[in-house]
């Protein structure tokens, strides 16, 4: 961390992480204005647009930056929307990241971004309903509400996957040398 090149790369990394947090946060807020439940009658459904930022980070940045992206976005979103939304976003976001990170090595031959994004959406929904069940003290919610969310999640997962493809195609990662790479 002593040479000017190192510190320039570190600055670039911090700036890019901050930018991604801002983009993810704006997407999370904007999607709350989209009355998706008018189109699909399942209360509380969201497009999950912030997943586009997560997908970008997952394929272009170190894992630590992606984890931080999800954590910071959830905390800031919670400051705006309240503690319950924050718990949903935190649990769902981290589970989605875990699922997509585990599937990432299969990307290319076996899986496309559509499949990875669908799995992320399903993991997100599962985490959300699990938190809701715990908070309400009622596991029945899992079998009543989760199937509907999972069904919708197939569609929204494909949509966010499709949205991430041009983003990944057009935006390169920061150029080397990276201080975080050997």
């Amino acid at each position, binding site marked *: 961390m002593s040479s000017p090149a190192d510190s320039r790369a570190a600055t670039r990394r911090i700036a890019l992480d901050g930018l991604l947090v801002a983009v993810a946060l704006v997407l999370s807020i904007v999607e709350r204005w989209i009355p998706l439940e008018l189109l699909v009658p399942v209360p509380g459904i969201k497009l999950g647009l912030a997943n586009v930022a997560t997908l970008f980070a997952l394929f272009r940045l170190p894992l630590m930056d992606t984890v931080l992206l999800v954590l910071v976005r959830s905390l800031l979103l919670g400051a705006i929307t309240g503690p319950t939304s924050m718990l949903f976003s935190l649990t769902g976001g981290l589970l989605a990241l875990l699922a997509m990170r585990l599937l990432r090595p299969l990307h290319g031959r076996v899986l496309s971004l559509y499949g990875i994004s*669908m799995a992320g959406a399903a993991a997100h929904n599962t985490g959300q309903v699990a938190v809701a069940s715990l908070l309400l003290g*009622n*596991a029945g919610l899992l079998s009543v509400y989760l199937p509907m969310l999972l069904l919708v999640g197939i569609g929204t997962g494909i949509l966010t996957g499709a949205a991430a493809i041009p983003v990944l*195609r057009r935006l390169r990662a920061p150029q080397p040398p990276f201080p975080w790479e050997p």
Partner: protein
Amino acid sequence: MTRRRSPRDPADGTVRAVSERPRFGDALVLAAILLAIGLLWWSYARAVPHGDAIARITQNGVTIREIVLSRVQAPETWEIASGEYQYHIRIEPGRIRFESADCPDQVCVQSGWMDRPGHMAACVPGRLLIRIDGEGGDVDVITR
């Protein structure tokens, strides 16, 4: 400008590699999700209680009011505070719903009317839940 590349992860850093088309693994992911949906629906259908519809209103997991919906004579709007929020619960002969709430997400209100055993609506921020059970049915099958 060559980037670190791995043949197993062609999307890593290259522009060319992100020409996406669906792969067979996507179908497997889809099948796994559909299977989960089917299993959850099956477990739900199996556990739905039969009999007269009883609305149970629970707060923080504790039942605070039970209403046999078929015996409701006059419509009523029940005002209740839970957590930081105020709720109007509308009770009519045979059915019940969250009529209005000042919670942020409005999921409970959007859930609409409930009239059959198995129906459920919840406000997670206020820890308030309405679920319809069946009189005489084995309720605990689907609750913790």
